[in-house]
């Protein structure tokens, strides 16, 4: 069970959070301009990395804020936590 450092509330048990999948997938500004394939890329395709992954979490049973997490999926270590809209830390690529 993870300990997640919510950027607004501090360290809390994983049971207070829900995961929102891969981060930094921006919703296309003009979906109607996209081909089926391009739209499918946004809609369905996820990296599902073994290793360092950027993902979204929601403190759903807390402050209800969404934020980003850098997690190594091979050992579940959370390496960094940052707010929505902030640039991902550059040292994990």
């Amino acid at each position, binding site marked *: *069970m*993870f*300990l997640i450092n919510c950027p607004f509330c501090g360290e809390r048990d994983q049971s207070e959070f*829900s995961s*929102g999948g891969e981060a930094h997938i*921006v*919703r*296309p500004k*003009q*979906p*109607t301009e*996209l081909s*089926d394939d391009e*739209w*499918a890329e946004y*809609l369905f395709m996820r990296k599902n990395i073994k290793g360092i992954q950027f993902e*979204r979490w*929601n403190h*759903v049973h807390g402050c*209800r*804020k*969404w934020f980003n997490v850098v997690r190594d999926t091979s*050992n*579940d*270590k959370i390496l960094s936590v940052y707010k*929505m*809209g902030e640039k991902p830390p550059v040292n994990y690529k």
Partner: protein
Amino acid sequence: MPNYRIHKTEYIDETKRVSFKYDGKTYFGYEGDTLASALLANGIHLVGRSFKYHRPRGIVSCGAEEPNAICQIGSKKDLTEPNVRATELELYEGLEASSQNCWPNVKFDIGGINNFISPLIPAGFYYKTFMWPKSFWKKVYEPLIRLSAGLGKSPTEPDPDIYDHKYVHYDVLVIGGGVSGIIAAKMAAKNNLKTLLVDDKKILGGSTIYQNNESIKIDDKLSSKWLKNEIQEIKKLSNLTIKTRTSIAAYHGYNFLLAKENLTDHLPEEKKKNKIRQRLWKIRAKKVVIATGSIERPLVFNNNDRPGILLSNSINKYLDYYGVTCGENIILFTNNDSAYETSISLHKKGIKNIIVDLRKSASSELIKQAESLGIKIYFNHVVTNTFGYRKINSLEIMKLSEDGNTTVGNKIRLSCDCLGMSGGWTPMVHMHTQSGGKLDFRDEDQVFLPKENSEDQISVGSCNGDFDLENIIDKTVNKINKFLDIDNQDYQDTNIICSKENDKRNIWLLPNKIPLGKTKCFIDFQNDSTAKDIKLALKEGFRSIEHVKRYTTTGMATDQGKLSNMHALGIIADTAGVKMGTLGTTTFRPPFTPLTFGTLVGRNVGKFFEVVRKTSMHEWHLENNAEFENVGQWKRPWYYPKNGENMHDAVQRESKAARDSAGILDASTLGKIDIQGTDASEFLNRVYTNAWSKLAIGKCRYGLMLNEDGMVYDDGVTTRISENHYLMTTTTGGAANVLSKLEDYLQTEWPELDVYLTSVTDHYSTASICGPNSKKILNKLFPNLDLSDENFPHMSFKEDKLKNINCRIMRISFTGELSYEINIESKYGHSLWKMCIEAGKEFNLTPYGTETMHLLRAEKGFIIVGQDTDGTMTPSDLQMDWIVSKKKYDFIGKRSLYRSDTIREDRKQLVGLLTDDPKEILEEGAQIVSDVKSKPIDMLGHVTSSYFSPNLNKSIALAVVRSGKTMKGQKLIIPMENKNINVTVSDTIFLDKENKRLNA
């Protein structure tokens, strides 16, 4: 009655005699005994039958690794418990236990015949045999297998015991209270770290606490005496918590561990009452010290499973801790030094014993001590067979060849009544691997050891492969100093004398002149898998250890292979000719030992099982005989039976009343989200399929919400309360998810929008009054409100006061009738409801539940998201193209509405169905076909909603059917078990297509 209790120990209180029943017969033991030690004191070894061959089996060990001595405790229907290890169960007055897996009894068991036909039931027997004839499976094989499957009996009534959960946080958690655990805990606690020490036994001290060999000393004291002093000292430390009878069940990531504390299992029945039985500790520790010790290995030779054959070290514990000898003429069979401790201990108590040692020679101080006592030692010898059915009575040994691969010379037959085996030690790396740690293999003594840690943890003592006392203490002190970054000097001058050496001759499968096929060399005692089975699996092509395990069921019993996994690996490696370390191990999964369901659920049983949400009208519904339906966590009135009505009759009456005069529904459970902000209209434009910017203040609009994949997600009516203020309603079940989805878009995709969302579901109670007389009832409640169609038309909103309390009134309809929803602050909900009922009396205002609501809306063809949709329906599939804005540039899911898949014409689409026989009511979920004769039958769709409409006096149904939109008027068939029902595809709206009733 024989008495094998031969001397007094400080752990057995001989002044407190305890009587207990085993297999119906009364015996006596003492306070301090386990069930196993008390049975052994009474000369009982035979405690069960093996799972497959029903061979007689005896107690093998003295701890959690026990494969054979598992028993059924108690006989009450609610309290009986199967698969309890007699070696761990503390004896108490009145304990009732019985053996398992035998019929009619353990001494004479019918299933024992399996032992003689065992050549016919090799590994994979079930897979190979019960394949044909196919028709035999259901009627013959499966019932037979079920009859013989499973161990013990489950209780048949609810568990009356109380269980508890507790969350704790510590700086350091130490698992295991043996020498190394005690040292680690002391060092941590003395350094001001908040420390928790847990041990599964009744007292601390591990195996050193009963050590009494004069040649193993610490600071010139017997090691047991030294350790007792240490325990006295740590008990004084204020920031150390010690929990005994507590075992770690699971080690999860981020140093989150679950421990089970046993609080009353050792108490007599009358003292257990009203006390918490077990507590689950949920522990977060900054650092974890694993000091779980090691388990002695058995040896694999022919007939190594007879009652009276135990692990050598267990014989030692029964003797020195419990004062019980396992026999009077004992043979110890070993490949290392530790059996010599047992031998010397037995010798000192006057128990005759001899040693058979696989090693060619050995010369540690301990062995010299044994030799000087005149104990007979057969070096370079191997046990090749044992004899005795219900208990061992003799065995054969032979000399080993130079390379150890075969036997040479003549058999020597030795009589005995007990055999101890010692195949060396297996470090308990379970906790380390559960935490995500990796393992290394040490060739010299063939053990897996902790390597990399992924958590902040460390292994010390024999679970780290340090087996002699000197090594254990020195290394533990050094490692703990480093691990905790401290400089503790307490043990710097500790002087340790240890006469034991870690010298071993490891042979996984011992050689024998008899061909393997004719031997019974057991690896897994509980699941009866033998060396032969493992070799057969390899011969049949299995290579991965995980596959061999499942094929032979090795390590899959309740003991999870604590004694057997290493031997299975060893034999696979030897047979396949690969290095053992390269094979890996099977996965060590939690729990370490079985947990009761009670411990896991704790207090969350009965009415605490799940949160129940009730509306403020709930009491009224109860008083008026409502039957309830669970919708999410909500209790909603389902229908209100009157004068013994059944559901059908009640729903027919309610539905008719609602259309003929007036009906009232408790709609408080619908999700309500308060939306405010200067961009609220723009936000609604983006989340709903239809346009919102032009909605006038005081007006309501129905909206359909999609997922980004274009599928219908939720629906509901939203009201514009003021310029920048909306009230959205959602489905009852979808409320939380909708809020969370909207928050997601607001926070992550459109942070520039000035919009605030607040869940107000619980803040307002809602009474929905519908029917031709609803306006008259409203008029009685709100005499000052102009209810004319001009002032208060359909889909609009007004505010008024009811006895000075503000109400929000929406004229909206889910039934197709003229209809009003009155919202009031929840604390007034009950009063509102009662006033409505009172006002409606003269109009036969009839309370109706969810079932009638469903029926009424189906008559009008209104969908219910989640009933008529299932996450694969687009608005077009629902024939609701009218609600999708063509003009809006974008909204959630828009682009998906013209993907190649969503524009397919043969998608399943919502249609109405009318049965040819108007009295025939279809079953929801029933399949729809057009031709019952084709093979395979082409499934076109299924029925989603079905009712008998009292207002139309016929059966109606909604369904999703492939290309349904084009099939109006077409005949289809619903094949049921006993008949085929003929139906005709119809419009989805069955009643009042012109919406005249809305303004009736």
